[in-house]
């Protein structure tokens, strides 16, 4: 049995398969520029203290509401202008990538974890497990997601942790729905029947045979979810429920900018543009990944 167990899974030789996958990825322009932008954001977040021209929290009331460079009465030291407290918009924007990306990655992974496990179980075991999970999904989807996330954060108290928890608690259904359907389809496939006749345990089949085949869809979904998480964080900040106000976040900047939009529209516009571009980049990357990794789409 032991010999069979080591010999049976994944017949293809790993290097050629990896090379093929990489080639497919590079061939997708969406992957290149979507992924490129995310990489750029990641660098900004990591190197924020070295790149940011000013301390994002430093107030300079003498230099309040300065417009971005190129507009009348600007100050060249503040590329994107300053807010009403004289804080540098560009520096706050750069530091804001930290929260945005942290939330995006951790929340999306958590949501994927919960959703994938529930989806796999429901799709593979069927019966009562499937009924329970499907009902749960149905109930969850009947909540307006924004309302539910606000509810969770209101209960747990504001802070990055509760924002992440809220996103995971709400968006697991996105993964569960897709993974459940995929698993149901895969469980009927010949190779699963073959594995079963070879005497593999159910869990072994689930994780060694089915999961790898669901992985491409999952990866694309995960990327899309990161984009959604960035938005949810911004929404919560906008409502005033995310992190404390002395940590710069895009959502917080937008909320603050909304208050002073007639005096200093750029405080509102800059983080909004960042949000726009980031969501678009995650979306394009996810779309590109789906096209590159999905064997059906490659035909």
């Amino acid at each position, binding site marked *: 049995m032991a010999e069979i167990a080591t010999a049976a899974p994944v017949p293809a030789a790993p290097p050629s398969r990896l090379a093929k996958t990489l080639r497919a990825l590079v061939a997708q322009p969406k992957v290149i520029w979507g992924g490129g932008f995310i990489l750029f954001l990641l660098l900004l977040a990591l190197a924020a203290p070295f790149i940011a021209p000013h301390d994002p929290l430093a107030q300079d009331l003498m230099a309040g509401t300065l417009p971005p460079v190129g507009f009348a009465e600007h100050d060249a030291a503040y590329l994107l202008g300053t807010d009403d407290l004289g804080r540098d918009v560009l520096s706050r924007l750069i530091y804001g990538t930290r929260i945005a990306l942290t939330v995006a990655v951790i929340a999306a992974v958590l949501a994927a974890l919960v959703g994938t496990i529930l989806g796999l179980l429901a799709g593979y075991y069927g019966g009562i497990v499937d009924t329970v999970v499907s*009902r*749960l999904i*149905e*109930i969850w*989807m*009947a*909540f*307006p*997601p*924004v*309302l539910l996330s*606000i*509810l*969770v954060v*209101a*209960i747990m108290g504001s802070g990055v942790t509760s924002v992440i928890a809220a996103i995971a608690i709400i968006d697991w259904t996105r993964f569960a729905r897709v993974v459940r359907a995929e698993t149901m389809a895969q469980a009927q496939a010949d190779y699963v029947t073959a594995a079963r006749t070879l005497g593999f345990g159910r869990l072994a089949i689930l994780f060694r045979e089915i999961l790898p085949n669901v992985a491409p869809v999952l990866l694309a979904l995960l990327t899309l979810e990161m*984009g*959604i998480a960035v*938005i949810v964080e*911004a*929404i919560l900040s*906008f*409502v*005033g*429920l995310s992190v404390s106000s002395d940590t710069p976040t895009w959502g917080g900047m*937008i909320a603050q900018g*909304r208050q002073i*939009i*007639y005096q200093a*529209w750029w405080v*509102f*516009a800059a983080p*909004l543009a960042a*949000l*726009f571009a980031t*969501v*678009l980049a995650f*979306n*394009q990357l996810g*779309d590109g990944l789906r096209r590159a990794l999905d064997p059906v789409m490659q035909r």
Partner: protein
Amino acid sequence: MIASVLVKRAGMAIVTLFGVAVVVFLLLRVAPGDPIAMMIGAGASASDIADLRARYGLDQPLLVQFGIWLAGVLRGDFGVSISLRRDVLELLAERLPATLELAGLACTFAVVIGGAVAVLGTLLRRRKGEAVLDGVNGLLLAVPDFVWALAFVLLLGVLWPVLPLSGRMDPSVGVPFVTRFYLTESVLTGRFVIAGDIIAHMVMPVLALALPLAAVIARILKDGLSEAMVQDYVLLARVKGMSELRLVVGEALRNAVGPTLALTGVQFTFLIGGTVIVERIFAFPGIGSMAIDAVINRDLPLIQGLVLVFGALFILVNLAVDLAVVALNPRLRHG
């Protein structure tokens, strides 16, 4: 056969609604923080708080509280809002029409725009215009309602201020209304100036809600249309000498609409959910913006009532989509 399916759906809907109520109830009661303390603030004596707790039934065990609330709901008594100190049902009745008009208009708009883009894209297939249209659609598909709403605030409300930024209509309009469906009523009674003002207030929130849904509809409907356009019956109609527009609209569309609706049904419920934040951004006085305040104020009876209303809306939309799919397919309709 169809009737029995619908009865089964309705039964499941009730289970879902009950589940929604249970989840919210548990979430709120398990949560730390005392709504009464938030309500009367510091300086209240312990006995005052105890009195209030008793008045809102918060001193009872969980199961009893839930039973009392559920029994009330079944009698049409949703309790009294803690923060607004008014009957919850009354508040809902006051706010719901605004949200219904907003969501209804947004759905209609999304269907019209999405449909038009899909038809146009099909007419332009294999030409330059198609790629441009697909690109724009991809953009709309990627960016959610929240971001559109904010972008409209900036562009159409501030930088080029052509549209009112908040509210449902100009507050100086002192015209009495019989119902809370202000837009419907003003149109039906022929008060078009007021209707125009209401519409001006709704343009941005409606667009923000409609654009992402329109993009989804456009994408899926266009796929359906392309599939239908290569069918033999379209070829035959082409041989009959029908114009290209008539092939798309008269022949392909009717067979593509049903499957598109079935695939996009869930997206319509996303639009309902989207009203929460979009109403907030435009200070639109519907149940969505009320819901955010209710949650922040920990107003338990109001939150429960609102969540139930949202759940019911979700279920009704799903049911409507199911019915429409059946109605649009002659095989199901007569089968």
